[in-house]
């Protein structure tokens, strides 16, 4: 089995099948990360696609610098696209539906998540659920409320009777601890 570095060299050297292997090798992890952030399948696929288009362009234009893991690089590109998306959302204003003869919001894209989408999203979290169970109670509670119940940090703070900064801090420590737990327990999260 070729290493990621070897596959990148092969792709830059003209063997296009090498990028197919790289994509297949890392697509699940990268997509899972994007989905856990944006929580919508279609949007996650758009960002995933854009991230890899940028990867392919960078490799083909000879601008790639081998500074570490390929998957880390691609996830960083995905992360930047996620941030761009959040910032665009912040700047969007609402419009009124009152002055139109038809319902502007009667659209699949604007509808609540379907049951299928909810199931898919829950499956993302099942991949890390084993680790989440090992967290201290107050940290596990924040992760579960944030990602299983889709509460904002403001709502979590109200539900748990703490300040928003405390809720945020617990989330931060939860994620730091998830990393540490992985290293300590060498857990495998592969689904059976």
């Amino acid at each position, binding site marked *: 089995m070729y290493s990621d570095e070897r596959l990148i060299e092969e*792709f830059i050297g003209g063997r*296009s099948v090498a*990028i*197919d292997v790289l*994509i*297949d*090798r*890392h*697509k*699940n*992890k990268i*997509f*899972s*990360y994007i*989905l*856990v*952030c944006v929580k919508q399948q279609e949007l996650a*696929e758009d960002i*995933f*696609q854009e991230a890899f*288009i940028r990867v*392919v*362009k960078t490799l*083909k*234009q*000879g601008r790639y610098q081998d500074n570490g*893991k390929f998957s*880390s690089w691609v*996830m*960083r590109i995905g*992360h930047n696209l*996620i*941030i761009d998306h*959040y*910032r665009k*959302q*912040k*700047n*969007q*204003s*609402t419009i009124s539906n009152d002055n139109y003869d038809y319902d502007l919001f009667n659209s699949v894209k604007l509808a609540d998540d379907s049951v299928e989408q909810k199931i*898919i999203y829950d*499956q993302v979290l*099942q*991949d*890390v659920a084993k680790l989440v169970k090992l967290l201290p109670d107050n940290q596990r509670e924040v992760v579960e409320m944030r990602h299983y119940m889709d509460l*904002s*940090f403001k709502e979590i703070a109200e539900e748990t009777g703490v300040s928003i900064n405390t809720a*945020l801090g617990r*989330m*931060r420590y939860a*994620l*730091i601890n*998830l*990393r540490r737990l*992985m290293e300590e327990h060498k857990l*495998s*999260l*592969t*689904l059976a």
Partner: protein
Amino acid sequence: MNSTSTQELILMEQEASWWLSVYDNMPDETFACADVKPSELVVQKIKGFSKALTTFTFLNQTESLLIN
């Protein structure tokens, strides 16, 4: 105007960074058999794009071209 507040935006960005650090430390093999994956259509589009994209240098500038 109803939009994401600055504070919420900062929280979302921080959270995305934290999840990035978690996923970055997960072994790649963890996701080999994961149920969550991108659709096959998206994957094929990316692979098709990678085959169709050609780069060339013209007047010391690198340009890209899609050839079908």
